[in-house]
C-alpha cells in the first residue's frame, strides 16, 4: 500500500436532521455533503473550493470524524477508518490535524504559546518539552522570544503560525487546512502560504486545502475539486481546472474572480445570475440547473454522472461533450 493514496473518500455523506417547525414530527435532512469521492496522494494538496454553504468545511470535518459520516467510506493509508472504534481511531487521528480560519479563536487566550504547543507533547510524554517547542516554533518561522507570550500579544499571522506549530507537534501526515489565510492580510497571507508550501516540501505533508479564494487555490494546490450544494461538480489537476474548465459552474466561478490586472477588465465575462439555493431544499436533478445558462430539460430531471474528459479530470454535467 505504499503507492496508494494517503487518504481516500468514497461516496461520503453527511446529513444533518432538522424539523421544519418546533412541533412537527417529520424529520427532514439537510444534505450538507452528498456523495463526495476523491483521493489524495502522499505529498499532494487537494483544494476543496466552493461558495458559502457548498459543504466544503463539512467535508473536511467529516473526514476528521469530527462529525460522524452518515454514509460512505474513508480510508487512511488504505485502512478503513469510518467505523473504527474511538480508542483505535485516536491513534490515527493523531496523524491528521486541522488548522482553522480564525487563529485567535483556536488558541486559548489564557495559555502562553509555550503551553499551547506543549499540551499535545505532554500527552505524548515527550521529554525536553521546551527544546521541542522551540524547534517547532523555529520550523514555522517564530523564535524563542514568542515562547512566553500570550495569543493576544502577537499578530494574526503569528497566531496562525502558532496554530500550525501546535498541529505539527504530533508529527502528523495529513493536514486539513480550513481557510487558513482568509482572516489574514495579503502580505501576511503570502508568508503563511509560503510556509505551508515549504513545510510540505520538507516533510512530505498531505493537505486538504479548503478555500473560497481561487487565486490562493491556484497558488497552493496540485489538484482541485469544485463543490456545489454538497456535491463535487468537477475535479482535476490545477491546470485542468484553471486552463480547461468544463463544468459551466467552474467556468463562471473562474470568471467571477477579480484579476489584479486592469487590462483584463475590458474582457467580457460571464456573470452568474441568482444565488446558491438553500441546501434545505435543493433543486432536483443537477443541483446547478437553476442558475446554469446552458440548462436544458434533462438537467432538472436527472442528476448527471461523472464524465472523464481527460485523464483524472471528472465533470458532473450532461453536456460536457456538447459544450466543447
Amino acid at each position, binding site marked *: 500500500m505504499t503507492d496508494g493514496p494517503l487518504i481516500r473518500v468514497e461516496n461520503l455523506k453527511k446529513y444533518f436532521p432538522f424539523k421544519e417547525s418546533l412541533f412537527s414530527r417529520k424529520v427532514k435532512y439537510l444534505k450538507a455533503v452528498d456523495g463526495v469521492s476523491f483521493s489524495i496522494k502522499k505529498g499532494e494538496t487537494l483544494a476543496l473550493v466552493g*461558495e*458559502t454553504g457548498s459543504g466544503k468545511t463539512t467535508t473536511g470535518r467529516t473526514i476528521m470524524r469530527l462529525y460522524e459520516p452518515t454514509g460512505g467510506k474513508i480510508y487512511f493509508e488504505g485502512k478503513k477508518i469510518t467505523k473504527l472504534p474511538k480508542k483505535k481511531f485516536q491513534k490515527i487521528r493523531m496523524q491528521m490535524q486541522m488548522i482553522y480560519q480564525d487563529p485567535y479563536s483556536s488558541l486559548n487566550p489564557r495559555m502562553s504559546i509555550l503551553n499551547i504547543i506543549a499540551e499535545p507533547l505532554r500527552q505524548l510524554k515527550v521529554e525536553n518539552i521546551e527544546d521541542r517547542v522551540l524547534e517547532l516554533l523555529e520550523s514555522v518561522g517564530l523564535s524563542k522570544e514568542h515562547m512566553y507570550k500570550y495569543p493576544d500579544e502577537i*499578530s494574526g*499571522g*503569528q497566531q496562525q503560525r502558532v496554530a500550525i506549530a501546535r498541529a505539527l507537534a504530533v508529527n502528523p501526515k495529513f493536514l486539513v487546512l480550513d481557510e487558513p489565510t482568509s482572516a489574514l*492580510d*495579503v*502580505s*501576511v*497571507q*503570502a*508568508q503563511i*502560504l*509560503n510556509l505551508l508550501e515549504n513545510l510540505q516540501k520538507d516533510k512530505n505533508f498531505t493537505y486538504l486545502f479548503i478555500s*473560497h479564494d*481561487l*487565486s*490562493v487555490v*491556484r*497558488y497552493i494546490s496540485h489538484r482541485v475539486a469544485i463543490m456545489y450544494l454538497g456535491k463535487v461538480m468537477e475535479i482535476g489537476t*490545477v491546470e485542468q481546472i*484553471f486552463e480547461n474548465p468544463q463544468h459551466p459552474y467552474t467556468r*463562471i*466561478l*473562474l*470568471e*467571477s*474572480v*477579480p*484579476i*489584479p*490586472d*486592469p*487590462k*483584463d*477588465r475590458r474582457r467580457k*465575462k460571464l*456573470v*452568474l*445570475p441568482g*444565488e*446558491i439555493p438553500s441546501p434545505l431544499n435543493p433543486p432536483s436533478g443537477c443541483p446547478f440547473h437553476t442558475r446554469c445558462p446552458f440548462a436544458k430539460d434533462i438537467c432538472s430531471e436527472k442528476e448527471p454522472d461523472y464524465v472523464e474528459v481527460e485523464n483524472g479530470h471528472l465533470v458532473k454535467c450532461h453536456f460536457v461533450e456538447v459544450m466543447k
Partner: protein
Amino acid sequence: MNVLLSIEDLHLKFRTFWGTAYVLDGVNLKIYEDEVFGLVGETGCGKSVTSMSILRLLPSNAELSGKIIFEGQNLLELPEKELRKIRGKKISIVFQDPMSSLNPLFKIKTQMGDIIKLHHNIDKDEALKKAEKLLRAVNLPDPHRVLESYPHQLSGGMRQRIMIAMALSFEPSLLIADEPTTALDVTIQKQILDLILELKKKYHFSVLLITHDLGVVAETCDRVGVMYAGNIVEVADVDELFENPLHPYTQGLLSAIPDPRYKKPLKPLRGNVPSLLEPPPGCRFHPRCDFAMKICSKKKPKLVEYSENHTVACHIYRRGNEK
C-alpha cells in the same frame, strides 16, 4: 474634471487607555466628479476611518484636524445641523456587513419607508412606492416580497442591494462603499460590483471604494490611493499603478498577491504592520522597506508628483523631482 471632495492634511488621533493612537498622519486626496476612486490597504491602515472622518461618524475620543472640502464647504467646521443635510443625502455610505446595517426587528418596508418619508417629506404610500422603485433600480426581483421581509429572510447579496438602494434614495453625488463585497461570495461580489458601476453610469455619482482586495480595485476603479499606517503612500490611475508601481509598499503588495491566471512565486512583505500607538519615526514603512536609507527614519516623505496623475510619498523619488 472637477474636484468633488478634497481632503487636506487630515490628522486623526484616538485617545485610548493605552495611550494616543496616531491613526491618520496627514492624509491628502482628491476625488473628482464621476469617478471611482479606490482606497486600498491592509487592516488598520486607516482606510475606513478616512471615510468615517468625511461623514464625521467617529467616536468621541477622536481628535480630527485638517480640512475636508466638499462643494466649497469644510465639512469639519460645519455645525451638526448643516452636516445632516449632507450626510446620507449628498454623501451616502454602504458598509461591509449588510446584516448589521439593517435592524433585524423591522421589515424592510418600515426601514426604507421611514427614511424616505423623513427626508422627502412625503406620506407613507408614496414613500413605499419610491422604495419599490429603488429596489427595482438595484435589480432586486420581486420588490414587493422584499419589502415585506425581515432582514434575516434575505441573503447577503440581497441585503447589500437594499443598502445600496437606500444609499441612492437621495441621489448622492458621492457614494462611499466600505468593503461592500468582503462578506460575499465571489459570484455575488461580481454582481454587486457590476451593479455599483451600472448605477454610477446612470446617475453619475462618484464612488469612494474602500477595499483590501487589489483584484477588486483592478476591476472597478479609475484611480487608486494606497494607504499604509495612516498615510497615503501612492496615488495613480489604475493602469499606471499596476503597471508602474513606485512605492516599495505598493510593489510589495502587488508581488504578495496570488494571480488566479497562473502560478507565480509570492514574495511576502517582511515584518508586520506597526503599532499606531508608537508609529516608527520618519516614513512609517521604513522598518519593512528593502530600500530604506538614512533619511527614511528621520524625515517623513511628502506626496510629490512623479509623473502626470501619479504621486508618491517616498524619498527614493525625491531627487528626480527637484527641478
